[in-house]
């Protein structure tokens, strides 16, 4: 029996001996990772290193071939029902022409705790208003989602997670297609959210930004190559293992690609 409630004080993420295979391809193996609550953790690895699969495993979107996943002590299936996890998709995975407003998107964070028709109650409207306020999008809330800049779009999806009241935010490449100024703004927003009690797992190509943003980092390549404070993880040897290149060799244009 899995727990039907979150355990206070449990690690936000507790993955043990996780293995995930698709058909005959192994996406993750021997992955054991614990991330304490109130931490910003960077997830680093090349395309195909298993970052997306780890995200999916945390959301219960893929089944573990073996091993266990716990979110605040609960199985992914239960953590979903308890609204513990929120996912901020990559820019390329969102249909920006979709006819929804910023406010509509943030309201979608509330659906998990609403009745079958998802008709919002006053408390939900208040939570959405507070989330919009929190990320500074009150003035833009009636815009169609695609009418925002790259940084504002990320803020809208983060606001959805805030409205959801999720303890764990999964951010997939949040700095791709975002200018430097917006990136700095997002970094300070993420740090504030951590100080307010959120746990943030952020996958990123932006190696240069990791020391400023993250409390710890995980270097992933099917397995966990390194996990610890950014300065101990981002050594040239480790990066050579993960990327086949050193940090100093990463070209300027590499930042924010895709």
């Amino acid at each position: 029996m899995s727990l039907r409630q979150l355990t206070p004080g449990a690690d936000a993420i507790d993955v043990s001996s996780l293995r995930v295979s698709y058909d005959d391809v192994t996406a993750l193996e021997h992955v054991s990772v614990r991330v304490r609550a109130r931490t910003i953790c960077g997830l680093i690895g090349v395309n195909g290193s298993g970052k997306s699969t780890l995200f999916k495993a945390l959301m219960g979107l893929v089944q573990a071939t073996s091993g266990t996943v716990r979110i605040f002590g609960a199985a992914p299936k239960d953590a979903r029902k308890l609204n513990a996890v929120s996912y901020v998709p990559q820019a390329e995975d969102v249909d920006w022409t979709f006819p929804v407003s910023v406010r509509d998107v943030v309201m979608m964070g509330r659906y998990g705790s609403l009745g079958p028709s998802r008709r919002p109650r006053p408390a939900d409207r208040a939570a959405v208003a507070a989330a919009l306020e929190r990320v500074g999008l009150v003035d833009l809330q009636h815009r169609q989602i695609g009418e925002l800049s790259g940084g504002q779009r990320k803020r809208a999806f983060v606001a959805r997670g805030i409205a959801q009241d999720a303890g764990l935010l999964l951010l997939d490449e949040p700095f791709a297609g975002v200018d430097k100024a917006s990136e700095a703004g997002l970094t300070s927003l993420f740090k504030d959210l951590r100080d307010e009690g959120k746990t943030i797992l952020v996958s990123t190509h932006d190696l240069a930004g990791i020391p400023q943003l993250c409390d710890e980092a995980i270097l992933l390549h099917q397995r966990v190559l390194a996990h610890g404070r950014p300065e101990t993880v981002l050594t040239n040897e480790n990066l050579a293992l993960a990327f086949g290149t050193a940090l100093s060799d990463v070209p300027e244009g590499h930042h924010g690609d895709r």
Partner: protein
Amino acid sequence: MEIVNWLFEPLQYGFLTKALLVTVAAAAVSAALSCWLILMGWSLMGDAVSHAVLPGVALAYIFGLPFSVGAFVFGAGAVALIGAVRSTTKLKGDTAIGVVFTALFAFGLAIISKTPSQTDLQHILFGNVLGVSLPELLQVLVLGAVTLAVLLYKRRDLTLLAFDRIHAHAIGLNTRWLTALLLGLLALTVVVGLQAVGIILVVAMLITPGATAFLLTRNFDRMLLISITITVAAAIAGIYASYYLDVSTGASVVLAQALVFLAVYLLGPRNGIVWQWRRRRARAAVSRQHEQIPA
């Protein structure tokens, strides 16, 4: 007074009143479903389901069952078959759809060619809204009302499903169930719509309304409202045009919708291509002037 006569003259005929009711009901339901269908990228799926119901309708006719039952069974069966082919092979989704629905459609045509009284079945292909019986009218109204009610009740979940399936899953919604629900509603809508315009044209009722509304707004609730309003209006216009111009009713209804789409495409206030063209020309003229004045 003359206009009143003009409007009421066709309604003296019971069959035209029934045709009007069936067409309006079909228009309202398909216009609503259409909004989700085009946002899901399921236009081809709509095409597939609408064609795949043919053998169901033919068999229902042979066995004397209500043809909506046969249509629904084969519509849902086609969806299941497509899902099975897709998940057990490495074929792309549209390939699985193409193989399954053409096979079922051909199967339907084969049954019809072997059935003695073919006229009624020809009507299924091209629509025979003028010959709708009272029980058929009631079926359409009840199925239409149920489909529309479920769509509207679950509209927020369906919109979330179309916009961000991963988020829907992450907050504990059952995305497989919602997908199945939308496919089931698609099959029901096809059942309702083919009474009005026939199997071959019903796909137009599933795609054009949403496409027209999408060009006019960037707000989903408004899109839904615009889609239903425009499509019902076009359906009524189509019925009258068919009466006064003596044109096939199904064709006339679909053409009316296509004309509205064309008008919005050309002259729509947001992105009508006529305005786009004029803006481009104006810009070109400005830059030509700048070239002529030496800096």
